[in-house]
């Protein structure tokens, strides 16, 4: 059976950062670091590119902004024109709060759901949970996993790379 990949355990965040940079320099791309808390500098150590989430949020915000203005313009001038306290039908000043709120709402939706989509969530099953020690990743364990899909993956070489980087309990995880 095709394995999912390797899982290696590390003792401290510092070791984890070091190991991640070793994996990056060795040319691995499909590997991940797991820790109970965020570690500063991990993005660089893993060689991660900036997320595209910001652009998704920008699109969401722009759509919200446009929706807010167009909705109020259409309602106040065409669908249900009402003169309120003698002000013009198209009073952009009055439209600002709703436009702003819709922009924030759409941006927030884009951020949350965009994040889910990029992370591949929700997901009911992940091969890493086949490894029992991996449960420690939520309390005090630091792990690096390397997927078998990585072009450089090799049962012999990858194991030695992980062990040389300071990993122990290096084990194959089943799909």
């Amino acid at each position: 059976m095709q394995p999912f990949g390797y899982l290696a355990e590390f003792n401290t965040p510092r070791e984890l950062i070091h190991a991640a940079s070793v994996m990056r320099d060795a040319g691995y791309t499909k590997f991940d670091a797991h820790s109970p808390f965020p570690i500063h500098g991990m993005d660089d150590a893993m060689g991660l590119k900036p997320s595209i989430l910001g652009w998704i949020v920008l699109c969401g915000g722009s759509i919200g902004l446009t929706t807010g203005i167009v909705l109020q313009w259409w309602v106040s001038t065409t669908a249900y024109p009402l003169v309120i306290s003698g002000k013009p039908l198209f009073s952009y000043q009055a439209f600002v709060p709703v436009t702003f709120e819709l922009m924030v709402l759409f941006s927030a939706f884009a951020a949350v759901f965009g994040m889910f989509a990029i992370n591949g969530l929700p997901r009911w099953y992940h091969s890493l949970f086949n490894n029992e020690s991996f449960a420690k990743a939520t309390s005090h364990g630091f792990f690096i996993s390397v997927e078998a899909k990585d072009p450089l993956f090799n049962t012999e070489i990858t194991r030695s790379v992980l062990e040389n980087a300071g990993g122990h309990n290096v084990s194959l995880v089943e799909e």
Partner: protein
Amino acid sequence: MSKDTSVARHNIKLTGFLAITLPKISLAVGIVFLVLGLFVSRNNLHHFSYSYLTSFIFYLVCSLGALFFVIIQHLTRAGWSVLLRRVAEVLMSNLWVLAIMFIPVLFALPHLYHWTLAEAAQDHILKGKSGYLNIPFFVIRSVIFFAAWLLISRLFFKKSVDQDLSGDHSITLSLQKAATWAVAVFAITQTFAYVDWVMSLTPHWYSTVFGVYFFAVSAVASLSMLSLILMILRRFGFLKDLVNVEHFHDLGKFLYGFNIFWTYIAFSQYFLIWYSNIPEETAFFHQHFAGSWNTTAILLTIGHFVIPFITFMSRHARRNLKFHCGMVIWMLVMTYLDIFWVIMPNVLPSGFHLGFSDIASFLGLGGIFVWAFFTKLKSVNLIPVQDPRLHESINFHNT
């Protein structure tokens, strides 16, 4: 003491052009332009006093904003900003120059504030406000404001400089304690100061958010000024390896946030007055939207908000030091325009006009401001060398 040796190899004393030649030139420029401005406007001191007040408020917001910056860094135990704090401390120490610059304003009271004139006694509304808006109380308040600011700025400056020599860590703790009451005193005094010196130019009008509005102005102005000064220092080879793109990135975030805050407050002030449409409140905007002042207001919306909002949003823009430098200069220009738009319609009812008296006041007060700044900066280290969090600031990285 390993910290000390690591910063010792850097250039932490101001020398050369910035320390010797620039203060001399700027002092000369300052005095020449003030005298020239006064001479050219000798027949129109009324106008000149408004130009003077505009420039005075511009430099005041820079220094008061720096005072706020220093207090808030202590209050939040910020580590990233330690390298930048000394420059901000020197900027806030310029308040003594501003206190002296304020004296001519006291002599120009009848030109600036029409509630000081005898006619005010006939004015029903001003009569009602005379318990607060009268000359003796105004002068007393002004003295209190400057006394409070000088007290706070001297305390924070002196203790910080003392720490350079003694390395006493308890100073950091005592300043953190002092920051608590200092920020409260700052908030109250600056609100009343802007109400007295700027809002009372239109004494019939009132806006409850005016103090916050000028607080936002001062935060934007001082962060821009701080960034610009650090760029200049780096340009002349100081702090080059210490203050890096990470610190500018954070200053940029701060500036960006406060600029949106400015927009929020400026719009809120306008929005509520526009909505309720009560004559004694709308009078201000009626006056400030007259003629080309309307164009100025639109220009402010676009230049002060829309352009920085879009172009300065990206981290790449904030980390591009050339662009960053251009942006902070632009923000300073916009801050001046904003203050100009608030103050000058009182003397130029028909529309925007930038005259020689405005330029002379700006360069005149600016020259003295720059002289005082670099003279003080030369006398101290460019960074708080013994601050316990200095190391954190040197190794600071944005994630």
